[in-house]
């Protein structure tokens, strides 16, 4: 922080945030200007205004497909993050389980999950089920790994104190582990949730008959770039919005951390 201030004092006009804002504006201007001036073919990069026009012009179509996508995302997120965080809390808090399962889980993380999608479509058909199963598997491992790692960072003294007060396993999980692990659990949720959102859309892109991903793929085969970019923009907005929402929750629950880690400050 002091470093950043020192360098902004050396260049008094621009703070890093201001430069970031200017960079963002420059990207938007280039996005409009490059295709308009013919420096980049419109097929590769449709102008910003064209993309937005495509989004607004087909708003009803995007809206209808977005509903299908959002429903799948909702269910998959419940499964992926519920199972991932729940199992992570359980495994992370039982030492022998953690020692055997954690290396396995992080080893399994190396498997490219996309190759399972054809199997799921063969098993469950090209309906919502296969994309929900796929997105759940896609998002679950990061949630599980993040939560397990979060549990490990908790000060062991809290557990000793809780046990010496004869807290039950559920009390230990609910009153000690969960509040203390909250920051890591939330960041695991942020990573896993973003993967679930994109997992559903990618599944729709591969084989599906509805949803935003299906629209993106259909417009791609028609070489209708503005509509492809509009769809991608919509999904990126969804991911960023989700991330901001979780960050808001992180901020709201920050006092949990302070109350559980107050001992560390001293």
């Amino acid at each position, binding site marked *: 922080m002091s*470093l*950043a201030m*020192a*360098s*902004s004092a*050396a*260049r008094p006009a621009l703070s*890093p945030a201001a*430069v*970031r804002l200017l*960079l963002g504006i420059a990207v938007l201007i280039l996005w409009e200007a490059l295709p308009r001036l013919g420096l980049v073919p419109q*097929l*590769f*990069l449709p102008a910003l205004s064209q993309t937005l026009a495509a989004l607004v012009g087909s708003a009803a179509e995007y809206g209808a497909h977005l509903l299908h996508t959002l429903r799948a995302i909702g269910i998959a997120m419940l499964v992926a993050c519920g199972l991932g965080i729940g199992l992570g809390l359980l495994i992370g808090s039982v030492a022998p389980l953690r*020692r*055997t*399962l954690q*290396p*396995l889980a992080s*080893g*399994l*993380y*190396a*498997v*490219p*999950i*996309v*190759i*399972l*999608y*054809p*199997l799921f*479509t*063969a*098993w469950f058909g090209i309906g919502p089920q296969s994309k929900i199963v796929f997105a759940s598997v896609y998002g679950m491992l990061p949630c599980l790994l993040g939560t397990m790692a979060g549990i490990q960072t908790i000060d062991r003294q809290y557990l000793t104190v809780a046990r010496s007060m004869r807290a039950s396993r559920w009390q230990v999980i609910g009153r000690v582990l969960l509040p203390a692990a909250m920051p890591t659990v939330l960041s695991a949720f*942020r*990573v896993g949730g*973003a*993967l679930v*959102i*994109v*997992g559903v*859309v*990618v599944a729709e*892109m*591969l*084989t599906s008959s509805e949803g935003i991903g299906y629209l*993106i*793929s259909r417009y*791609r085969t028609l*070489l209708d*770039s503005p509509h*492809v*970019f509009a769809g*991608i923009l919509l*999904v*990126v907005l969804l*991911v*960023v919005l989700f*991330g901001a929402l979780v960050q808001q929750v992180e901020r709201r629950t920050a006092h949990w951390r302070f109350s559980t880690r107050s001992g560390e400050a001293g």
Partner: protein
Amino acid sequence: MAAAFRRSAARRLGGLLSWIGLVGAIAAAWQASLWFGVMTPELLPPIGEVLATAVSLLGRPAFLASVGVTLAEVLVAFAIAVPLGVALGFAISESSYWSAILKPIVFLIFSIPKTIFLPMFILAFGINFGQKVGFGVFSTIFIVLISSFSALDSVKSDHVRVARAYGASPWQIAWRVYMPAMAPILLEAVRLAMIFNLTGILLAEMYASRAGLGQLIASWGENYMLKELLAGILLIAAAAILFNEAVRWFEARCEHWRS
């Protein structure tokens, strides 16, 4: 020393046993679901047949050619993304002003899963080798950037100062101070980069391609050739896990060398 060696050997044996346990559990669940009629052999061929298919795949020239295509794409993308990412990461870290500007942007882009941008690459590059490599590089480079940020952060300035005070040359400082501190984080970067890279390229092949393992997997799925599909999944998963474990083993050795 001997005790430490015995302990690490015991841990490695324990790790191996838990992998054997996991494989056994999957095989048992697989066969049990067939015996109890949860799955039909059309949906889930018996594990013995799938393993036999996997072995025969390894002898088929068409399959090996697909493996070659995918491997070439993965290696080229890796060879571009890792040095480029490390160089860019170090260049950004050099200046605290530009770090303050660019790091939040890199972290924001990193938080968006890259797979969503695949259709843009097809519109821009068409469907070919270059497009797969480009998408692989794009999927990989942000994790490398972020790892190089934290690798440089892990070098303690005290250590550098002490080395300079003793008159170490820049080369000696790079090799004796920077390398040992950064090696574990950079190896971790290599491991994660390979996971992201392989996933990106397989997806690109599955989405639209004329060659490669991903294309093969997708077409087996479309044609309900589940024996081949499952065999392919098992082979890719085994290769990915083996590569990952090999890098982790090397990481553990470096950790040892560092202390």
